[in-house]
């Protein structure tokens, strides 16, 4: 038996809507099998993972808090991937944004003003964008592969943060713990509603998603991104510069990752510490693909992956499984998403005969 693909005359609209859901369904099944292999009852485990967190208000706020950075980074990455720029270093840009945004509350902690927070957010965006400018410059002007450079920069940013919080920025009154001083109240992102911890970061994420959705759908820039992503040559004939597109998409995604970084630090952690992210920058890659590189789809995908974080923490406590379960889930999900996307462009046929295709090729 083997699998053959037959190209559809045009992309299937039906499957482009359905494929993420098929992928989710398959992930849940595979997850159930995984829990069974771990010796847990799959049904109660899946219930605890995917349903229980939706039932109480505290968990819903946790989901929103975790979805905010995923959506912010994911929509930025979608612009990169659509234009064929493979920025996979969002985790580093997130970290750079967090560090740059923390300059004011850590170094100039005695300055109290309503300007503090807006400036922090701007610094965060600049920090993320500047950090993304390195692979952008290298790709646009030195022809260096952005996949590898952006990824290497992740390790460098994380080590730099580690040095900052253990060295120059370590709080004088933290008993040698590697943390900076706590942010002053005016340096903390306000909460959005009175019922829980969800902060302004979630609003940023939604605004960014809507703005980029609008850009992709209704502006020339969006068209340019799509054209250059599908064919550089066609883009050149239309007068679009792929070099400028490298800069645009990388700086934009870097700025959004940086905003996510400073929002997370300011809204959820309230100080800098060696580890500020459970891999948001990498999980956002999954978010971008699960959302089919569509900003509105990414909002839904971001919420779902946030659920896997919260659900993972929940079953960790109730079923005593390790936190790695979440990573496995996320990896499986990306696999299923990518394989289900094949259905959009191709018909899949199972051929049972030994040497298939021979008869048909004679006829066609």
């Amino acid at each position: 038996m083997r699998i053959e693909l037959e190209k559809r005359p045009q992309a299937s609209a039906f499957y482009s809507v359905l494929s993420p859901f098929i992928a989710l369904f398959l992930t849940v099944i595979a997850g159930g099998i995984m829990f069974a292999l771990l010796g847990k009852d799959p049904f109660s485990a899946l219930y605890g993972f995917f349903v229980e967190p939706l039932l109480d208000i505290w968990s819903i706020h946790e989901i929103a808090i975790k979805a905010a950075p995923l959506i912010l980074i994911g929509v930025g990455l979608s612009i990169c991937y659509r234009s064929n720029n493979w920025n996979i270093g969002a985790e580093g840009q997130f970290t750079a944004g967090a560090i740059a945004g923390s300059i004011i509350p850590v170094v100039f902690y005695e300055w109290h003003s309503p300007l503090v927070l807006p400036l922090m957010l701007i610094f965060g965006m600049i920090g993320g964008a500047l950090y993304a400018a390195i692979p952008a410059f290298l790709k646009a002007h030195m022809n260096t592969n952005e996949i590898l450079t952006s990824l290497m920069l992740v390790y460098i940013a994380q080590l730099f943060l580690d040095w900052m919080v253990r060295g120059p920025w370590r709080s004088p009154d933290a008993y040698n713990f590697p943390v900076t001083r706590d942010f002053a109240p005016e340096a903390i992102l306000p909460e959005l509603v009175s019922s829980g911890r969800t902060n302004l970061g979630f609003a940023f994420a939604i605004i960014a998603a809507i703005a980029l959705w609008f850009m992709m759908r209704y502006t020339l820039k969006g068209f340019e991104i799509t054209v250059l992503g599908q064919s550089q040559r066609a883009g050149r004939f239309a007068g679009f510069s792929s070099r400028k597109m490298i800069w645009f998409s990388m700086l934009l995604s870097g700025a959004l990752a940086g905003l996510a970084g400073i929002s997370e630090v300011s809204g959820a952690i309230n100080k800098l510490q060696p580890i500020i992210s459970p891999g948001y920058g990498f999980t956002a890659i999954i978010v971008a693909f699960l959302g089919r590189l569509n900003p509105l789809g990414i909002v839904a995908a971001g919420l779902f992956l946030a659920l896997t974080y919260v659900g993972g923490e929940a079953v960790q406590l109730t079923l005593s499984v390790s936190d790695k379960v979440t990573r496995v889930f996320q990896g499986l999900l990306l696999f299923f998403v990518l394989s289900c996307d094949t259905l959009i462009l191709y018909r899949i046929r199972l051929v049972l005969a030994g040497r298939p295709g021979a008869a048909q090729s004679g006829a066609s």
Partner: protein
Amino acid sequence: MGIVEAILLTVITAATPLVLAAMGELVAERAGVLNLGVEGMMVMGAVLAFAATQMTGSPYIGILAGIAGGALFSLLFGFLTLTLVANQVATGLALTILGIGISGQLGEPYVGMSGTKLQPVAIPLLSEIPVLGPLLFRQDLIFYMSIALVAGVHWFLFRSRTGLKIRAIGDNHASAHALGIDVIRMRYLAVMFGGACAGLAGAQLSLVYTPQWVENMSAGRGWIALALVVFASWRPWRLLAGGYLFGAVSISQLHAQALGLGIPSQFLSALPYAATVVVLILISHNRRMTLINTPASLGKPFVPDR
């Protein structure tokens, strides 16, 4: 043994996993497949090799488990990119994310356990040569395998018929298909070879380099291996030289830390990653040279027409 020899020994130990993983990726890329999942396959190899060694007591069975695990894990990538023509970049990332997740899960019981180190095997006579003997001929099996691999792959790619076919499908899969070469089948084999090599590299990490299991212990080496392939412009012997250069850089930070030069350890730890970026810049700024060396079909999907 003098201090210089001791340092050179550590360089060899640090370089071997890079050479192994990059060698496998080189063959896959020569066949036109860009597998960014090296990191994931490597870490899977590491955990499986460690677990098998703990269970059986024999690091040689561990080596086999690492190789088999890496090859099987790479099949997942092969199925998606070759059969379902999914995007190779995204699928490679997925393989890395999944590999880190699964290996963390599998390795949970082994965290903190002290492992069994793969013992060196002295080659009679040759190991008696002064200086070179202890360095090159009193090594563990995986080191010998890495050198044999480089020579073997060079011979295979440039002297054998199948190697010619591999290069042909990497440079122009449509023409190769027209000539009657089964592109998909060859690519599957190349991907699995890459997975086996990455798995072996992982086994080296958990059996030789630091004989224990630490979550995510490949620490970016799979990505450095990918850079190494570009650095070597897809040539086996250059890859060996590059691997030792990278190995030297990555180990020099440990020696510098030991000397206590007053440089923060984080800066030294960042050195291999920074060096990788610098090397990538140096080799890629000449656009024409890059284009000549890169397999022309690299990363492009192929659907056989019927």
